[in-house]
């Protein structure tokens, strides 16, 4: 980490990426649902070295009143990086340009799956706190927030997940880490609705050809199916091993 100013390492060599993965391999993902006692729904995700906590509140009365809609619930999202979360400039608290952008794209991804017409005049709040970052936090944040929303029992048309694809030394690869993100040729986070295959979040850094783009999307689609399985396991585990208290215990 802390790659700025360093020499570009060899990202792809003899079938192995910089951390030893193959092109279609994800980093290790662990999700735990229902970890916060006071939130209506919550989830904690460890995705590689990323550590992210997501909490959902609502539906509750929409405050301020001028934000509320008579037709649907207003969805609000706050993505925030802890000052100690990474090696780069995250040292100040409060919203930055980056965190505002990510809050917006995460909110918009969820607006298309939450059935908000059921709760007029209310708000649903999604809070995402990045405790430790290592590339791909927005994808991990979407994945964790989807679990937290399902845990809160908020009606949704789908359980969504997100994953990034990147281009490293001319090869398309899934789920870039920090180094691949900083030195790769391109980075492209995508969120899918697995039921319909719709794309709910799509951003791109760098340049890709048409063929590389479609290869990247199909790689991400395959990876998101794996992520959905992990999400489903995390949600089901809450009911298979019920706990009296909802506190996060790091094993």
């Amino acid at each position, binding site marked *: 980490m802390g790659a700025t100013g360093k020499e570009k390492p060899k990202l792809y060599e003899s079938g192995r990426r910089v951390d030893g993965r193959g092109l279609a391999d994800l980093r290790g993902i662990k999700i735990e649902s229902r970890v916060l006692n006071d939130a*209506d*729904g919550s989830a904690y995700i460890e995705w590689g070295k990323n550590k992210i906590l997501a909490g959902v509140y*609502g*539906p*509750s*009365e929409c405050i301020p009143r001028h934000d509320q809609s*008579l037709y649907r619930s207003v969805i609000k999202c706050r993505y925030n990086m802890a000052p100690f979360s990474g090696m780069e400039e995250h040292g100040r608290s409060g919203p930055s340009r980056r965190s505002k952008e990510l809050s917006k794209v995460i909110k918009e991804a969820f607006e298309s*799956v939450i*059935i908000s017409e*059921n*709760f*007029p*005049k*209310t708000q649903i709040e999604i809070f995402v706190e990045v405790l430790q970052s290592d590339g791909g936090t927005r994808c991990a944040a979407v994945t964790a927030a989807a679990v937290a929303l*399902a*845990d*809160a*029992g*908020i*009606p*949704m*048309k*789908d*359980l969504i997940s997100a994953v990034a694809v990147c281009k490293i030394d001319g090869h398309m690869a899934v789920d870039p880490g920090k180094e691949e993100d900083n030195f790769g040729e391109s980075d492209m986070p995508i969120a899918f*609705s*697995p*039921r*319909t295959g719709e794309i709910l979040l799509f951003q791109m850094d760098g340049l890709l050809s048409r063929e590389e783009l479609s290869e990247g999307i199909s790689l991400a689609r395959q990876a998101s199916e794996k992520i959905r399985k992990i999400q*489903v396991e995390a*949600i*089901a585990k809450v*009911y*298979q091993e*019920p*706990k*009296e208290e909802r506190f996060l215990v790091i094993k």
Partner: protein
Amino acid sequence: MIDLAENRIVMPGELLSEKPERISYAFVDKGKTYSTVVGLFSEGKLVPLEGPYEPLPDDLIVGIISEVKFSGYSVEINAPYVSFLSSREIRERYEMGDAVFARVDRVDEVKNIDIADAKKLPVGRLVKVSSVKIPRIIGKKNSMIDMLKSATACDIYAGRNGYVWIAGKGNQTLAEKAIRMIETQAHTHGLTDRVAVYLKSQQ
């Protein structure tokens, strides 16, 4: 301990039926029916495992008076909306913080909620649980709640909104613990028997 075999646990967006069907907490897209919540699905019925309380007419609820107004009261009922209790046709007077047992009278399309037939509850304690667990706390033909009442000698009012009011001279702490136990194990089988064993062991 947990038997999910006959009750399939479904996730949001999971296919329930190849045909368009009217199932609560489900939606129809392109002629197929999908779940919207995490729930248990069996025999064409979807029971959510978690979720906010959505008031329906004739629900019996426990509410807390949150504001005294000129013509009635605002009542907090564990929903995203505050309900209104008109003071017409009520003989009692309430103060802020009083607990009432009432019936949901009317809910309109923008979720203005009117409640009626209120009755002030005696001094007691409030246990907040998720509203989807209330049918389990009441049990089939009131079996669970009758057992709780007789074992703890408390008066228990289970509101459909997820507020449970425990009053009376009995063992209120035991009643609260038993309700918490039902809440965490609501989706499991043979719960009434396990609660009976627990209540016996605590007496």
